[in-house]
Structures are given as C-alpha cells and as structure tokens.
C-alpha cells in the first residue's frame, strides 16, 4: 500500500515539532455484505475502504489526523496537522523501520475471495429454510453474511514496521416467532478471524436452528421473577458479563481517568477464588484476535484475575508509557479514522472444577440464563445491567419454564465475589464492542457458572 521510504518521511513530518512519538496507520478493507430478510436476498453490498491516520503523541495527549487519500501530499499534510497539536519544540528522531515477526498467524484456509458470492447467497437461503421449517410459529427470518479483509501497515518512529492481513467472517441470524399476540425474537451470530472454513465448524443450518429455537421457546415464557436470587449462566454468558462488568473498568484509559472501581487495587482479592480471567489476542482464529494490535504491538495473553486476585490492566501505548510499563497489546481502533484506545480482544473466564449438571442440580430456586442481550456498565461505580434474552426458572435443581423480560443488575466486585461454582464446559460468544464511538470485534467466553445472589429485575413476583 505504501513504501517504507514514504512512511519514514511521514513520520519525520509528524515529529517536526518533537512530541514523544509518531505513528502511521494505513488500511485497505474489502468487504462483502449480503442481507436476507423477509424471504428475499434484499441486497449485496461490496465495499472498498481505505485511508491513513497519523498520530503524534505528547505525554498522554495526542494529535490525530486522517484522510482517505493515500498519496504523498495527503499523508504529509495529515502528519503536519497531527504535529500541530504538540507544543513547538525541536524535531524528534525517527528510527529506521524494521519489519516485525508476528507472534501468531491467523490463517484463512479457504480465502473468502476464492468462493463466488452465489455460494454465500446459498448459505443464507439455507438459513431461511431451516429456520422456517423448525416451527410453524416462525414469522420472520433475517440474516446477514459478512466477510472482509483488512490489510494494515503500521509504522512508528521507534522503528516498528508491521504488515498484517486480517480476514473476518460472520453469519448472524435473527428469528421472530409469534403466537396468540405474543412475539419473541432469537439471535445467534458466530464469527471468526478466519476464512470460509469457519462455517465447517459453525454450519449455517445450526446457527439458524439455535436462533429459531430461542425465539420459539420464549413464546411459552412467563414473567420473570424479581428480587435477589441465585443465577446460573450458561457457557459463554459469564464471559459477556465479565467483559462488561470487569473488562471495561480494567482498560487503562478508564483507570487513568480515575473512573474505575478497580483503580489502585492490583493484588487485592476482588472476585471469587474460582474466577481466573484473561484477555487473550493470541487465540488462533478467534474473532477478537490479531497478530499485532493497531499500534504494532505483538498480540499477547494478559491475566486479569488469578483465582480471584486482580493481576493487572489492559494497556495501549499512551497509558503504558505514563505508568512506566509495557503495552499489553490492547491498543485497538475501529479503522484508520479513529485513534487507538485500550480495548479488549478475547476476554475469557477459564474453566473451573465443577460439572454443569451438578451446578444446576444443587440450585434450589433461581434463574438459568442461556442468552444475554448485551449490557452496559458504569465503570466508576461498577454498576451494570444486562438484558436476558433467553432465560428459564430453576426449580428444585431443574431447569423448568422459560421467563421473559428479565434483566440482571449488580456491582462488579460484589457479583464476581458471589460466584460460587464454575464448571468445565467453556464456550465463546462473539460481538462488536462499542466504546468512544468505535466498534471493534471482541470475543468473550466462559464455562457455566453460578452467582449465589444477584438482583433479577422482572415483572413477576
């Protein structure tokens, strides 16, 4: 996309007034999105995105300028604009650029461009057929297939030169079921940093079935109970909660702004001893993975909690420099149009000693949550809320009738400390996490686990 010599010139222009570093991020992204809705292939969209962003750092402040032109003039102009944010000083140094070896490579065995769009359309047709044949109560199916290849080049004034190609695929299915005036929806959307071989492990028909069953089952749901009670989270769902409630307050920018409930508490026991949690960008072909982060730092695995004890934070380059530590490779951005900030990659709670069946059997009364609709957290207080999109009552140690309209609220430290059982049936859930107006692909994961007491909001008694 550009040669090293031009990159060097851009970096020198960025450091014309000094500052602590300059960085160039160049991106080209080819994408295909196909949408099925209402039984029709509504549209296919091909996209070509490209652009470059120049960042000039100065302590924890920075100037950032981007353009979607990649010619010499545009790049040098962006560098000057970014440099203008730095107070006048003497020009800074730019070290010769050297290519970095990736710590892990996420290969696409079957590249998306090797398969005609007609095959991808056929998968969506199959999704529609499978979902509709599952139950006469299925009213509507919408599904979207997306693939993209993001090629990035990152060059930094301390001599880093990184080239990476990130292939991503996703199939998301939403099913609407209705009966006697009741309408319910179900969603499932597995995704990977991979080629089309991903759909061998995650067949479109299975994705359709999961979404359709979710919607149809919830037609029989009664009102959720309200009040404090035990909640068992199905595999993957504990990871979603971990991402929102613990992950965000452990991002170093949140901590730096003194807006984190975990600030200054590394080394303290702030979760149940059953909880070991990591953020791991090296998981091969996982949705939130990469070879290098968007600042050119190699992917790594960072332990956040070890047996309940808080171990560390997730850092990007600016915050790491401020705290005098190394970046953990968590500097990510949505695209060239965004400066990098600390973000999660794949945040997982690891397997524990229990068996899922035993965890449920030893729960007298509570709620079993098999799908969360996403959630929000206030990192300063640790308060969070999650919508439950698929949940059931637990009565006498058995999963019984489905419940609707439930949500979970609580505070991060209390709830994580209340985890009293962790099973060994780890699974993942993929999503797009939004922060400061930037969406990035993230994975979360966990085995089945139980929270001894948490507030369930619902309309029932």
């Amino acid at each position, binding site marked *: 996309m550009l040669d090293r010599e031009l990159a060097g010139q851009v970096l020198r222009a960025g450091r014309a007034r000094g500052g602590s570093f300059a960085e160039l991020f160049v991106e080209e992204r080819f994408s295909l999105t196909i949408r099925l809705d209402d039984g029709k292939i*509504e549209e296919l969209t091909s996209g070509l995105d490209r652009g470059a962003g120049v960042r000039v750092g100065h302590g924890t*402040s920075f100037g950032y300028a981007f353009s979607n032109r990649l010619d010499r003039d545009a790049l040098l102009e962006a560098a000057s604009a970014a440099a203008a944010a730095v107070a006048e000083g003497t020009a800074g140094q730019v070290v010769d650029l050297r290519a970095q070896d990736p710590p892990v490579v996420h290969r696409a065995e079957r590249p998306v461009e090797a398969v005609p769009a007609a095959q991808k359309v056929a998968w969506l047709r199959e999704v529609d057929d499978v979902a509709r044949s599952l139950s006469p109560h299925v009213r509507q199916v919408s599904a979207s297939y997306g693939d993209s290849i993001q090629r990035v080049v990152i060059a930094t004034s301390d001599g880093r030169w990184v080239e990476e190609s990130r292939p991503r695929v996703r199939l998301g299915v939403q099913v609407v079921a209705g009966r006697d005036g009741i309408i319910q929806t179900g969603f499932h959307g597995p995704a990977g940093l991979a080629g089309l071989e991903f759909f061998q492990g995650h067949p479109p028909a299975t994705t359709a079935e999961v979404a359709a069953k979710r919607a149809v089952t919830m037609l029989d749901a009664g009102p*959720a109970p309200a*009040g404090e009670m035990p909640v068992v989270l199905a595999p993957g769902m504990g990871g979603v909660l971990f991402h929102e409630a613990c992950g965000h307050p452990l991002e170093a920018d949140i901590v730096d702004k003194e807006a984190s*409930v975990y600030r200054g508490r590394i080394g303290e026991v702030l979760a149940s001893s059953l909880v070991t949690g990591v953020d791991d960008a090296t998981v091969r072909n996982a949705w939130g993975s990469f070879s290098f982060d968007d600042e050119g730092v190699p992917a790594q695995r960072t332990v956040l909690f070890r047996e309940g004890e808080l171990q560390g934070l997730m850092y990007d380059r600016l915050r790491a420099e401020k705290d005098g530590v190394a970046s953990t490779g968590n500097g990510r951005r949505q695209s060239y149009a965004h400066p990098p900030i600390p973000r999660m990659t794949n945040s997982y709670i690891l397997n524990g000693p229990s068996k899922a069946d035993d965890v449920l059997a030893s729960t007298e009364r509570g709620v079993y949550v098999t799908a969360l609709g996403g959630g*929000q957290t206030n990192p300063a207080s640790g308060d969070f809320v*999650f*919508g439950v999109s698929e949940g059931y009552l637990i009565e006498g140690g058995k999963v019984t009738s489905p419940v609707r309209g439930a949500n979970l609220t609580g505070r991060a430290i209390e709830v994580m400390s209340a985890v009293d059982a962790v099973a060994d049936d780890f699974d993942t859930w993929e999503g797009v996490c939004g922060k400061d107006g930037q969406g990035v692909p993230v994975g979360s994961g966990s085995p089945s686990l139980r929270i001894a007491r948490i507030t369930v909001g619902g309309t029932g008694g």
Partner: protein
Amino acid sequence: MADLAELAGAAVEAARDHEAVEAYAEEARRTEVTAHKGEVEGLTFAESRGIGVRLIATGRLGYAYAADPSIDEVRAAVARARENAELATEDEFNALPPAMTVEPIPALFREDQAALATERKVSVALDLEHLAVSADPRVAKVDQAGYGDAVSRVAIASTAGVTAEYGRTDCWAVVSALAEQDGETQSGWSFRVARELGELDWGSVAQEAVERSARLLGAVKPASGRLPVVLDPFAGSSFLGVLAGALSAESVQKQRSLFAGLLGEDVGSPLMTLVDDGRTLDGPAAAPFDDEGVPTGRTELIAHGTLMAFLHNTYTARRGGTDSTGNAQRGGYRTPPGVGTTNFFVQPGATPVSDILRRAEGGVLIQDVSGVHSGASPISGEFSVGATGLRIEGGELGEPLREMTVASTVPEMLKGIAAVGDDLRFFAAVGVPTILIAEMTVAGV
C-alpha cells in the same frame, strides 16, 4: 480532484439501458478536541469522502461503495453493484424516487462555523472541562469533556433525474462528570448540539453533568413496588429510540413492529402526540431532502394517542401503496437507504415540571436508563432496564436511588402517560419533555 456532483454524475453516466442507477456522494471535515486535567487530551482532524452506488435492474438491487474514488473507481463501483444485483431477489417495489422540487434550507450551513479556527475549538474544550471541575467541590474530575464539529456536503444524482446537493455545519459539546464522596463515585452526563458555536450553550452542558452526578451521591437501592414514575428528558429520549424502530414502515411491513395493524387505533394516552419533522430548525436533524433526494416533511405519527402514520422511504411507500414521507436514511455512503427518523419528538404539553413532581408523590424520577438496546424489544414492546434516579418527596427531588430496574411494556407505558411537561429538549435528533407515567414496576432489593 473531482467534486461531489462530478463523482455522482460519473456513476449515473455509467448506467446501461434499463438500469436505474443512483449515486450518493458525501464529504466531511471533522474536528474533535477532548480536554483532561486542564490540557488537551486529544485533537483529531478528519477528512473523508466517498460514494455509494445503488443499481436496480429488473427489480434486483445491488450496492457498492468506494472511499475517495477516482472517476475510474466510480465506474468500477457501478460494475460491482451490477454483479451484486444479479444475485439479489427480484422485488417489484425496488425503485428510485422521481426528481422532486426541493426547498433549500440555507440556515443549515454557517460560514463562520466552517471557518472557525482550531485554537477557538481547543479553548472551548478546555473551558468545558474547567467549568465542570470548578462548579462543585465533590466533582473534581471528568470522564470526558469534549468539543466537536463537522462541515459536510451531500450530493445525490440518479437516472430518474434527481440532482440534489446541500451543505451543513454542526457542532457539539459533551461532558461526563464524576462526583466523589466517602469512597463512592457517581457519574452524570450531558450533551448539546448546535449549528454554530455562538448557539452552543456549553456552560449548561458542564453544569448539568455536574448536577446530575453530584445528586446521585449516597444512592441506595429502593424496595420493589408499583410506583408513579417521572421520566426526565434524558431518560425519556432513550425510550423514544425504541419507538422510532417500531414506527418505521419497514418494521411494520416485515411484521417486526408492535404497531403493525394498529393504524387508527388508540395506542397511547390522549396527552401524547409524537411527530417526525425533517424541516424544523428546532431540532438538529433538519435537512432539505432525505438520503435518496426526497424532500423532507412533517409527519404526525401519533396524534392525541391515536396511531396516524408510519415513516416511509420510496421502497416502503411503493410496497404500502402510499407516498414517501422523506424518511430515507443511511449510515453514510457505505449503506443503501433504509427508513429512519429525522427530528423525532414528543410534542410538549402545558404542565410545568414542578406540577409533575407534585403529582408523582411517593414515586421516583428516573434520570438515566441503561441497557435499553438490550433490555427493550421494539418487536414485543417489553422492556426491563437498569435505572438511576431520585425519590420524589413533598413535590421535591429527594433520596438518590441506584441499581433499580424498571420493567413494563411500551403499550402500557404510552397508555399510562398522565402528564407531559412543557420542557421539550432535543438529544441529537430525539426530543422529549418530562413525562409522568401513572404507575410502573420498580425493582430494587
């Protein structure tokens, strides 16, 4: 470098016989400044342009886009849209709108704002943070304090004869303040938008964020029960977003709206009138034409509780046998037009907020809700969301409350509206006054 109209024109010229081609070209220049601890934390300049091509052949729709394309790349995008159309399902309602007379709205573009110096923007961001941290001793820092602006242009051209173009300026201020006392932290947020800096009241953004964070200090969990609930405009605007999806004809036609089949029926309290108005300058989303070149207008969706209309673009209007309401919206040049709101608001009533509080004795004022996107369904209308707020005692705001959940259904909530305040406030493109709901389930401990 080709201008937007030339790029759009090149796409239209590349159309073959019997093809309908539309090009949507846009360019924007944005600046954002954030301040932290008296210094500039981040300064971002952005320039972007791109084009999206919609091609319809024998009722099949294909789409392609390209960032900062050359004329050759525009032609290549038309070719990719053509290939994509071949694989799509034929749909007789796919069509481009005819050319219509568009009344320009010159007030959307302010020369002074377009020429505003970067130094001035930086000083506003620094002032915003300074005001936020010096108003109340319990608020010593912010999570976010920022100023941003954009100068943008849009041009649309099509084989149906549309040639429309306009420019706009927008600026905004946002503060998220952190209040601390006895080891407890609470956050409060505020946001305002304007067309030029001279009309942007950033002082009140700082002040509101501070008040809203500090008044939550000492918050307790309430007991569960059914209570009168007052939604302040911040909280109300979150719920209005759910209604926006349900009132789009696209959702209705696809059986994905709780309002499907209810035209002419009473769906809310007689006190409730809900409007979408793409031309009123009171709201920030005003524009002369929508994202496929159809002139914007005013649509009463719910009038005194009765469901009157849905929002339409050209596709949904053809399918529903009606006219577009000028509500084609897209997320920039990368997506084909769907249906969306412009300035979407609850018509203000005559009741002062003080009267509403008196009538909600023993209830709660909700100041913020979280999890609306996950916790509220525009299809079933059920929701259960997290909330923070204050108890209402003796007509005044009292004890702060947190870790509450509020659960109901949208139809119940609309029917339960017992008073509408006179204090309409826009948040981005959604506007709502203070609203009293007679009774809702509030869950705490």
